[in-house]
């Protein structure tokens, strides 16, 4: 087997995507901590760090385009690079959603808590473990783990619906004045659920990368 210079460049790309994954994971973790601890400084830190993730997204995109232009990759190499581009975009969106959560946290932090947080922390745990597993699946080319991520998404949808029903029916419908505290919570649940959706996309892309099988929009292929 010939060791190609191209392999070294692919390893560099792999490292950068992994770094992007770590940054996105950190952003989610800190945004959830900021919510749980009502920590304004933590929320602001996530918001101000987002620029670094945006810059890395551009660096990775450029590297992928450069690799395609210079090497005209085929087969597994091509699938790795195109998947890398998609994963990169999904991770950037995930980090943006962490920023969105922090903005909601800033809207809530000076107001009394509407209710004890039960389902949102559960949802955040699912989101964090899905992101971690999706990145691990990408790094280790682990199709079984990627499938597990895809299947976990329905649990996140259920929890988001629970949070939504509770906040609308038990609070806002009964007392409209709770809206200024309920709506940010509603949006946080929505942001967490969207993080799970982006993570599902990453997992589906990993399956394509490894097995050349398209499961996106074809759950029966799982």
């Amino acid at each position, binding site marked *: *087997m010939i060791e190609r210079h191209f392999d070294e460049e692919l390893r560099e790309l792999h490292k950068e995507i992994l770094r992007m994954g770590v940054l996105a994971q950190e952003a989610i973790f800190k945004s959830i901590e900021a919510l749980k601890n009502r920590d304004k400084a933590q929320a602001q830190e996530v918001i101000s760090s987002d620029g670094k993730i945006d810059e890395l997204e551009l660096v990775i995109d450029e590297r992928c385009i450069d690799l395609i232009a210079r090497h005209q990759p*085929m*087969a*597994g190499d091509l699938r790795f690079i195109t998947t890398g581009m998609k994963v990169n975009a999904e991770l950037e969106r995930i980090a943006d959603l962490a920023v969105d959560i922090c903005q909601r946290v800033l809207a809530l932090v000076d107001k009394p808590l509407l209710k004890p947080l039960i389902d949102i922390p559960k949802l955040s745990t699912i989101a964090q473990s899905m992101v971690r597993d999706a990145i691990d699946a990408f790094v280790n080319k682990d199709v079984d783990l990627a499938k597990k991520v895809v299947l976990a998404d329905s649990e996140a949808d259920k929890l988001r619906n629970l949070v939504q029903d509770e906040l609308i029916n038990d609070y806002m419908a009964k007392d409209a004045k709770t809206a200024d505290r309920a709506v940010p919570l509603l949006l946080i649940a929505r942001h967490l659920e969207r993080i799970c959706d982006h993570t599902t996309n990453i997992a589906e892309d990993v399956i394509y990368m490894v097995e050349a099988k398209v499961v996106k929009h074809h759950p029966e292929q799982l």
Partner: protein
Amino acid sequence: MAKIEVNKLNLWYGDFHALINVSASFIEKKITAIIGPSGCGKSTLLRAFNRMNDLIEGVRTEGEIIIDTENILANGTDLVSLRKKVGMVFQRPNPFPLSIFENVIFGERVHGENLKRDNLERIAEESLRAVLLWDDLKDKLQKPALGLSLEQKQRLCIARLIAVKSDIVLMDEPCSTLDPQATARIEELMRELKDKYTIIIVTHNMQQAARVSDDTGFMLLGELVEFGRTDDVFTRPKDKRTEDYITGRYG
């Protein structure tokens, strides 16, 4: 519909087993690329389609190559009409040391029945138009073909096949001596021609195979390892050997 059906084709050069149980369907009016490392048998397979290998001493074949319902490996095959029907373009263009006009109508002069000037002129014009040379050469038809550029010579050789109404065009590394622009123009010509002709191209240039062909076959050590739609072969090859070759890992 299959234009060429290859069934369990085996070919030996003396003791050397050059093609091993090759089976494949080459679809009519499509471009099929055959790729593989040097010495894998791809040119041998190509030359089997018009029995050019017969010219090599000690060649022995088994199996079938069905072209339009006829097994061309059968005894009694009319090789002259086979080679009219299945024309070949080589790595280096090989025009005859004649005028451009005489090159194009050479086949007609040898095989044709109507050798009247107006018929030959019509054939020359149609053939040169088909390869997009007419506008450039219509006023230079009596000039020597050897004075043309490499790309024009290659087009002229293709025009020569069109003139004798070949319906299968075999191309053995047709662009390997051309610069990138000339290569791009020959590839465009191939796309133009595939509406009327079945084209099989042997190439070392993987990007070329990926760009121009509808189907691709990968050969290794005399075997046809993988054969399928080009987009499948280049994005999701089934065989690891194909993957290793097209990603440059084969060594």
